[in-house]
């Protein structure tokens, strides 16, 4: 098999990691929404923490995306 095939397969495999981060981001926003509906007056005060949690979780998805990009364009 041509070794360049392995590069594309690897890039595809690296993107599986983004699924896990997708679950994480969904949990964060889902729970925020559930809590915000229960107590709307407290929702605005937690917006910073919401974005912080989102950013930290999203970083993991970004790492797998960068691996995929490196395999596609740099290696």
């Amino acid at each position, binding site marked *: 098999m041509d070794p360049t095939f392995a590069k594309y397969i690897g890039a595809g495999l690296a993107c599986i990691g983004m699924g896990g981060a997708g679950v994480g981001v969904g949990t964060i926003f889902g729970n925020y929404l559930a809590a915000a509906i229960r107590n709307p007056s407290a929702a605005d005060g937690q917006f910073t923490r919401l974005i912080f949690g989102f*950013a930290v979780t999203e970083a993991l998805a970004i790492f797998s995306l960068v691996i995929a990009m490196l395999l596609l*364009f740099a290696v």
Partner: protein
Amino acid sequence: MDPIHQFEIKKLFVLGHIGGVEIAFTNSALFMFAAVAIIIGGMVLVTAGAGNVPGRSQSLVEMIYDFVADMLRQGAGEEGMRFFPLVFALFSFILVLNLFGLIPGFFTVTSHLVITATLALIVFFTVIGYGIAKHGFRFFKIFVPSGIPIFILPLVTLIEIISFLSRPLSHSMRLFANMLAGHITLKVFASFIGMLATGLGVFGFLVGILPLTMTVALTALEFLVAFLQAYVFALLTSIYLNDALHPGH
């Protein structure tokens, strides 16, 4: 066309050579100068005729100021306001550069890791430098959380050190990869329109409406991402500065 062709750095003119390395004025530098000129020019112009009753442009600038100041107070407390110039400069610089990237034909400066890494390292070394200057050896308490059982304390300390050292990596990668991925997605969807139109003729033009709609929707999403990533960068900056100001809790 290659979707990453848009990120190519072009030399506009060569300034000189330092030890065999060519120092050139690039399109990246041009857009950074333009962003700084717009920010400073806008702020100076608006606040030159400042009145007690703000006009439309003055209230916009005051809104941005209050927005960043509130975020910094929440993240780093009242003492964090001494870093307001740094955080505000980072926020406005990244926001303007991100929005520049959305104008067709313009270069996206923040889609280059070398730029975002420089900004993240400025924050990283500011945190270390200020933390050690202000607290001395006590600054290293941020690696040793209180209230942890002694048996797992070495493990937790190790994890804290690794997470502290990986901060500039994730800080810079987040902005870089978000801008890069967003612009590649836009380009890929836009190229579908051309492929359909040239490949399928009249039928292709009709089906091409679908990727066109998607491109418009993605552009709207990219405006949200451009703002959100500038906000996230400044928010994380203020949270990291909080460690330098109040280590050990």
